[in-house]
């Protein structure tokens, strides 16, 4: 009569089979595992102070490039297709009635300007 399989027997038999299958791994597989391990160990070598800096180089370069791009973009000459606010104000002044009156008395204002430019000693 078969003895019922208890938890411990199951674990022992399963582990024995697993260990056996580990021992059966072929040379090509072991070689690939070894290569993978060596690749992983390179990470430890790269984990020193110099390596840590080297790891940030690509990210730093990308960030610097982004900053340069933003600066260049902001500094580029902008062509204004619409008149500035100041130009519009000048245009309104030009069209106002007061300004037209000023244009009619242009000779008078020109004389005042000349008189102000002459020193007091010359007037007197």
């Amino acid at each position, binding site marked *: 009569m*078969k003895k019922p*399989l208890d*938890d411990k027997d199951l674990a022992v038999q*399963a582990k024995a089979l697993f260990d056996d299958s580990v021992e059966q791994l072929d040379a090509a597989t072991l070689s690939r595992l070894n290569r*993978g391990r060596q690749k992983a*160990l390179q990470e430890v070598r790269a984990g020193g102070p110099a390596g840590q800096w080297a790891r940030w180089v690509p990210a730093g370069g990308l960030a610097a490039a982004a900053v340069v791009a933003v600066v260049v973009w902001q500094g580029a000459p902008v062509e204004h297709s619409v008149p500035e606010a100041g130009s519009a104000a000048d245009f309104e002044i030009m069209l106002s009635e007061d300004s037209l009156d000023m244009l009619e008395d242009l000779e008078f204002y020109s004389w005042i300007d000349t008189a102000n430019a002459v020193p007091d000693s010359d007037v007197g």
Partner: protein
Amino acid sequence: MNAYAGIFAVSCNREQPEEAKTLQREQQLNQFLAGVERRALRFAEIAVRDRDEALDLVQDAMIKLARNYAGQPEAEWTPLFYRILQNGIRDWHRRQMVRKRVMVWFGRTSDPEDDYDPVAQAPDPMGRTPDEQIEAREAMQTLEHAIGDLPARQREAFMLRTFEGLDVAATAVAMGCSDGSVKTHYSRAVHTLREKLGEHWQ
């Protein structure tokens, strides 16, 4: 001149222990990985049923451990390594599910030749007869299929506890869950496997 020599000496003295420390850590990690890699491969192979995929997963886990946790105490490496490997296996299963959905959507199914073939071609290092080898392989194949059919968390708990010999606390770290959950998953896994394998094993 003496001042420069002194500065140089101080600089060398600072760098030397750091280099020696890195070298020592590298040797320790090499020893650890060499001891765990074969079992990790079979562990992953049972979970994904594909050796090439399992090799990639183990390599990724080794690289991530070296990159992120080489500075951790050596005693913590085993549960950390298996946690990384478990996460990789879970991600792999998620990708496979998405891939299968896409394949179904495009009306394609997997190639039967791609199915998992567990029969290894290497000669038996233990000097057993071909019949004994076949018997052992068939038993392992039955076990692998039974484990592969378990829910993911039960499979993880069973393999970590039984194959890797991790205790409940270390298994909990590796699985990212509580001790109680590990016990529950392990107990259910053993119960299911005993029912499935009871006919074959005694």
